[in-house]
């Protein structure tokens, strides 16, 4: 049987250029019609420090990064020691035999990348030699990579006429060297190219594109891993008429300036990570009380405080819903895949405009760096909302109604004060008990407008369910499929609309004996939120800074399935 799936990891030091190689390899395969997903982890420094990146190539859409390695490409001794145990039986460890000598462990394959590259006349083609070897190991056809090279360097005006033939020769040399070695991992089945158009993007690019498609007009941000790439994307792309992107002096500037812009009538957004999100909490309370639509993207990293800037975690959910002091409950949407990053951003902007308040889009490091092929979105088919703007005369009482009311636009009649203090119908500060009651209830009533979230479910007849959130969806879904194949009696639920939860979903969850929530935090934040809404939920936690492995989830869910009735959780 031909292999349907192939995982390669590149490990070494930051600055060695293999991030580009891994993405290039994945990109080449998507062009050929395979499905691909990359995953990266690195230290908080630009050059040096242990870094790795992997790519999974498959004949069917990829859910997850892949647990076991078919090929490990190492660039130094310590990378070899750190990763060799994750190579599957029969896998191969590939390395440059010019710079490195490894023990003969039956898996290692040394090929002189640099030396072979030099023989083509292009000393920088070492990565091409490596890719040629990789392709040979899985019997991938030569056209796949040749096509990539031609597309990547085929512009002779820019790269000259030599680069393409040199790189193709480098591919062939790598291929030849791997063939001579006798190593083979089994033939990768030919791709079945999808019948729809695709794009190949990171999670953060998906968020940025979703924002542009949703009609974003104003973005202010401050550099912070892993959200910085959104700021840079905006600075490059959010230009032209009625578009503004800017790097502020702090996250406090970011949040207050997007509030100012939205007050002025623009669709406004910022993107940050945990530490910046904490600095924004007072501003989020302001947007909530003054009823100003904004979207804040929190690309989670490990916390608390400065925490783990370049690792992944799902530990900001609690503070996303209740970031600020006082009575607030912020709407939260958390995408679980690269594709969902796009649509979740559109949805977050629609929610903010519809209910006139702050919405949190909760992404995470593992998604931000993940590059994947997805179906190309058709912007013209998206449903895009815009706040209701007051069109009447002066003398309007902006906050008089018991619930949502039209928002005046400065420059036009309808003057009012948008106030961070509790206020009366005109927006003037007040301390009257009945006004605080009125305004508090008015603000919470608007959340009813956001109960249109969708959810996934399967095999709902079983009393025990698995319900991941965010980026844990991918490993959980793959684990769920394996459990199902093994005959496990377990239901599946998933939504990216975490607050407010879709009412029908909540009703179904309340009927379950046990809802297992795989999530990357110590506290079990989502299960605690579910329990507060009368769902018997319990978390499967992990707090290593890395995503779940499918095999771990299979084992930990199996332990619990069937125990549902005897292992109730105190509510």
């Amino acid at each position, binding site marked *: 049987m031909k292999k349907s799936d192939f995982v390669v990891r590149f490990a070494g030091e930051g600055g060695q250029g293999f991030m580009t190689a891994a993405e290039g390899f994945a990109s080449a395969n998507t062009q050929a019609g395979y499905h691909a997903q990359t995953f990266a982890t690195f230290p908080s420094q630009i050059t040096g420090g242990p870094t790795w990146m992997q790519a999974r190539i498959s004949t069917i859409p990829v859910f997850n990064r892949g647990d076991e390695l078919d090929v490990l490409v190492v660039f130094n001794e310590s990378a070899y020691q750190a990763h060799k145990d994750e190579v599957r039986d029969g896998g191969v460890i590939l390395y440059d035999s010019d710079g490195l000598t490894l023990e003969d462990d039956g898996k290692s394959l040394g090929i002189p990348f640099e030396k072979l590259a030099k023989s083509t006349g292009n000393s920088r083609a070492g990565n091409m030699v490596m890719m040629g070897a990789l392709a040979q190991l899985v019997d991938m056809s030569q056209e796949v990579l040749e096509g990539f090279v031609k597309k990547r360097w085929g512009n002779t005006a820019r790269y000259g006429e030599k680069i393409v033939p040199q790189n193709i020769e480098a591919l062939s040399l790598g291929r030849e060297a791997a063939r001579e070695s006798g190593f083979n991992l089994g033939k990768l089945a030919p791709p079945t190219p999808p019948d729809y*158009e695709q794009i190949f993007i990171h999670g953060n690019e998906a968020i940025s594109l979703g924002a542009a*498609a949703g009609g974003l007009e104003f973005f202010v941000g401050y550099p912070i891993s892993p959200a910085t790439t959104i700021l840079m994307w905006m600075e490059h792309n959010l230009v032209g008429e009625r578009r503004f992107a800017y790097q502020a002096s702090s996250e406090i500037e970011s949040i*207050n300036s997007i*509030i100012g812009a939205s007050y002025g009538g623009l669709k406004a957004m910022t993107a940050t990570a945990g530490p910046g999100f904490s600095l924004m909490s007072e501003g989020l309370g302001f947007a909530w009380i003054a009823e100003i639509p904004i979207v804040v993207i929190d690309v989670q990293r490990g916390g608390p405080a400065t925490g783990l800037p370049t690792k992944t975690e799902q530990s900001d959910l609690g503070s996303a819903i209740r970031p600020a002091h006082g009575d607030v409950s912020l709407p939260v949407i958390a995408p679980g895949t690269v594709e969902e990053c796009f649509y979740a951003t559109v949805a977050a902007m629609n929610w903010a405009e519809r209910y006139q308040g702050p919405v949190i889009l909760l992404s995470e490091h593992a998604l931000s760096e993940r590059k994947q092929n997805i179906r190309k*979105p058709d*912007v013209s088919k998206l449903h895009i909302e815009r706040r209701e703007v007051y069109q009447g005369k002066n003398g309007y009482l902006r906050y008089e109604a018991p619930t949502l009311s039209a928002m005046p636009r400065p*420059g036009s009649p309808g003057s009012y*004060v948008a*106030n961070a203090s509790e206020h009366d119908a005109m927006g003037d500060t*007040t301390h009257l008990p009945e006004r605080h009651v009125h305004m508090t209830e008015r603000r919470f009533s608007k959340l009813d407008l956001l109960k249109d979230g969708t959810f996934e479910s399967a095999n709902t007849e079983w009393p025990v369910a698995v319900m991941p959130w965010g980026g844990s969806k991918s490993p959980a879904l793959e684990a769920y499929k394996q459990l199902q194949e093994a005959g496990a009696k377990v239901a599946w639920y998933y939504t990216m609309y975490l607050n407010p939860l879709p009412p029908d979903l909540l009703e179904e969850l309340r009927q379950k004996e046990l809802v297992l929530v795989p999530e990357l935090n110590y506290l079990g934040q989502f299960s605690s939120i579910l329990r507060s809404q009368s769902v018997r939920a319990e978390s499967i936690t992990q707090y290593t800074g890395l995503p779940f492995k499918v095999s771990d989830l299979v084992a930990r869910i199996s332990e619990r399935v069937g125990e549902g009735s005897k292992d109730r959780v105190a509510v």
Partner: protein
Amino acid sequence: MTDKNPEYDFKWCPGCGDFGVRRALEQAMEKRLVETEEPIESNVVVAGIGCSGNMVHLLEGPQPYGIHGLHGRTLPLSMGIKAGRPDLNVVIVAGDGDFLSIGMEHIAPQARRNLDICAIIMDNAVYGLTKGQSSPTAEKGLVTSSTPFGKPEDGLNALNLYLTVGASFMASGLSSKIKDLANLIYQGMSHRGFSVVHVQSPCTEYNNTFEQLKGNARKGIEPLAWDIPEDHPEDDLSAAFSLVANGGVPLGVVYRDEQRPPFHERIVSMNKNARVRTAQEMVDFYAV
């Protein structure tokens, strides 16, 4: 309780300097209404926290838009309003505690951007609304409710600070000289760039300095306030620095530079070579 809103019950203490500043701002906005023929709704008053910020609720006559934000954040709020809507006239009303203590971090970046706003800063050297604690502009040694044995830090020379961080227009005024102050505010609003009108606006309750500012010949008190000479070169930065080093409270325009482009124009000119694409074109860029 105000004429426009009987429910609103905040009051300034009798004799508060902020009454004069309010009248001056109303006059300046009335003049702008006449001169520009733009509606009153094209003005946005951005208020800080404290007695002075309450001005946004106490303005009489035709009502501008208002936003009463978080403590110290008038400037970033204004950046969002002005960068997003350059057609609006943005005026900040804040006190020395809000603007120069918790809000200090925002002054330099916005001045360097030359954000086109006019900040009216009411300085009384104390936090009035929290009952008289010392503020950055209080002189060393001042006894206040939070400095019972005297303030240990040196007082801040706010005028020097604005010049140092690059304000392109800066004037200094007195709350009791309403007509002069209205004129300074009008000039600040008309200036295309970052303008500050720093006003001595005494707190009658916790730090009443009216007498020291205006002087009292009978008691032999020399006035702290003095008129800036007519021959002061307003566009000369070193002359401006010398002027604010003279001590006391200069009255008039200290500095102006009309050559620097405002922030929103810089963005347009910096981005003129950028490729403008539709959202679908941005998506298509990533085609496999």
